C-alpha cells in the first residue's frame, strides 16, 4: 500500500511539473468564450448549449490530459533509467502499473473537480439553474475517464510515446462512436453483424455511456441502477486493462 501510494504520488507530482494544469486554463478559456459566443446564437436554448458544450469540453479536455500525462509515462521511466531505482526494490510490475494509474487518476479527479466547478460557475453567472444531474454527469465523466486512463496505461506499456498518444486518442474516438457503431451494425440485420456486435461489445470501450447529454439537459438524471452499472463496467473494463498492462510489463524486457 505504501509502495502504491509513493508511486502514485510521484506520478502525480511529475504531471504537475509537466504543467498539465495549463490544459485546465485552456478549458476555462474555451468554456467562457463558448458560453459568451455560442450560447447567444441558440435563441431560447442558451442553457442547453452551454451545458452541452461544457460537458463535451470536459470529456475532451479529460482525454487530452490523459494523453498528455499518459503517453510517455512508462517510456520516460525507461529512457531516464529511473526504472532501475524502482525495479531494484521489492516492487511488483502490478505495483508499478497501478501506481501509474492511480497517479493519472488523481490528476484527472482534480481536473474534473476544477472543470466541473468552472462549468457550474459559468451556468450560475448566466443565471441558469444548476441541479444534481450535473453532478451525476461529472461522476460518470470521471468513470469514463478512468476507463480511458486504464487504456492509456496499457498502451503506454508497450509502445513509444507518439504512438501511445495516437492510440489513446483513437480509443477515445472509437469508444465514443462504439454505441453508434453497434446501432448501425444491428440495423443491417445480418447474423454475421450480430456476432460482430457481440464480440466488439466485449472489446471496445463503451465510452459513449459516460457522456450522454440527455439526462442532464432535461434534468431527469440517472437512476442509481444506471449509475451502478456504469461504475461497475468502468471498474471491470479498467481493471482488465490494468491486468493486461501488468502482464505486458512482466513479459517485456527492459534493456534501458
Amino acid at each position: 500500500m505504501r509502495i502504491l501510494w509513493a508511486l502514485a504520488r510521484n506520478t502525480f507530482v511529475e504531471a504537475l511539473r509537466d504543467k498539465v494544469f495549463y490544459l485546465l486554463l485552456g478549458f476555462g478559456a474555451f468554456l467562457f468564450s463558448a458560453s459568451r459566443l455560442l450560447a447567444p446564437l441558440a435563441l431560447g436554448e442558451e442553457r442547453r448549449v452551454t451545458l452541452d458544450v461544457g460537458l463535451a469540453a470536459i470529456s475532451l479536455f479529460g482525454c487530452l490530459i490523459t494523453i498528455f500525462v499518459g503517453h510517455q509515462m512508462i517510456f520516460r521511466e525507461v529512457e531516464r533509467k529511473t526504472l532501475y531505482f524502482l525495479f531494484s526494490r521489492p516492487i511488483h510490475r502490478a505495483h508499478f502499473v497501478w501506481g501509474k494509474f492511480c497517479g493519472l487518476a488523481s490528476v484527472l479527479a482534480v481536473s474534473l473537480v476544477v472543470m466541473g466547478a468552472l462549468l457550474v460557475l459559468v451556468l450560475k453567472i448566466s443565471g441558469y439553474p444548476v441541479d444534481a444531474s450535473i453532478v451525476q454527469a461529472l461522476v460518470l465523466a470521471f468513470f469514463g475517464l478512468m476507463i480511458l486512463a486504464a487504456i492509456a496505461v496499457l498502451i503506454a506499456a508497450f509502445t513509444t510515446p507518439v504512438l501511445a498518444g495516437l492510440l489513446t486518442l483513437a480509443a477515445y474516438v472509437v469508444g465514443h462512436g462504439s454505441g453508434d457503431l453497434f446501432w448501425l451494425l444491428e440495423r443491417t440485420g445480418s447474423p454475421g453483424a450480430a456476432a460482430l456486435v457481440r464480440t466488439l461489445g466485449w472489446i471496445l470501450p463503451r465510452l459513449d455511456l459516460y457522456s450522454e447529454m440527455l439526462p442532464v439537459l432535461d434534468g431527469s438524471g440517472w437512476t442509481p441502477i444506471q449509475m451502478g452499472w456504469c461504475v461497475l463496467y468502468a471498474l471491470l473494463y479498467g481493471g482488465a486493462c490494468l491486468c493486461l498492462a501488468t502482464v505486458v510489463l512482466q513479459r517485456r524486457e527492459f534493456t534501458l
Partner: protein
Amino acid sequence: MEYLVALEGIEKTYRPGLFQKRVRALDGLTLRVERGECYGFLGVNGAGKTTTFKVLLGLLRTDAGRGELLGAPLGNRTVRRRLGFLPELPAYYPHLTGAEVLRFARDLSGVPRDDAADRRLFEELGIGVAADRRVRRLSKGQLQRVGLAQCLVHEPELLILDEPMSGLDPIARGLVKDRLRRERAAGRTLLLSTHVLADVENLVDRVGLLASGKLALEERADALLASNTREVVITGEGAVSEEVVADIPGASWRAGTAGWTVSLEHPAPLQVDACVRRLVRAGATIHGLETRRDDLETIFIDRIRREEQA
C-alpha cells in the same frame, strides 16, 4: 557455503530489432558470490558486466542458464528488500531533492523514514548539499553518491554496484571506499564492477574477470597479488660483493648510497630464503627487505593480452 549471487551457464543475446545485428553479451557465465565477501567484477568495456546485473535484477530474460539472487530464483520480488543496487550512470527523478530521493527509496523498500539518518549519510559521503538540491542540479559526482546513498538506506545484505567510483574525485573515492569497507566489515556482501583496479585494491576479497561473456579468470585478490611478486629487494651492508650473488638465478647486486642492494626478479619463495641466508653467511647486515608487486591492473592487462593472443 551460502551464495547470495549464483549464476550458472547464463546466456544472453541481445536482439535489438528485425534487421539489426545480434549481440551475444553473455556466453555461459557462471558466477558465485559468497555471503560476506566482496567480489570485484572486472572486464573491459562491453564485456557484459552491466548485462549481468540486469539479468540479476530480472530486467532481462536469459536464453539459457539458471540463477539465484539472495537464495531465490531470479525475478523474485520480495528478496529485493535485501538488495541495494547502484546502476552505472544513475538517474533519479529530476524534480526530487536528494533527501526526497532517499525518502522515496525508503517508502519503496518498506523501511521507516528517517530524515536525520539520511542527512548523516549524505554528509558522510561528502554531499551534504545534495539533501536540499534537486537532482537536476547535481553534478555527476554528486549524483553518483546520491546513487550510493539510495542503495544503502534500507541496510541491504547484498550490494550490487555498477562502477561505484566512476566520475568521483580522489577525495570522494576515498569516502566511498571507506564506506564500502565498513559495509564489508559489517558483514554485507558486495558485488562491484569496475575498470579502475586501484579502486578495488584493499577492498575486494575475490576478483573475476569477464571476457567475451564468461569468466576468464577468478581468484582471491591476495593470492593473485602474492603470486605476482615482481621483485624482492634486499638492502644491507657488509662484506658482500657481486660474486656472492653471481650464482643465484635472477639475482643482481648493486652498490647503493650506504651499502648495497640485491634484487631478485620473480623469485620463488624459497629462493628469497636461500638468498638471504647466503648473504648473512657472507657476513652481511640486512637492513630491509621489500617486495614489489604488480598491481591488479598490470596483472589483468597482462592476462587480457594473453587471452587475446590465444
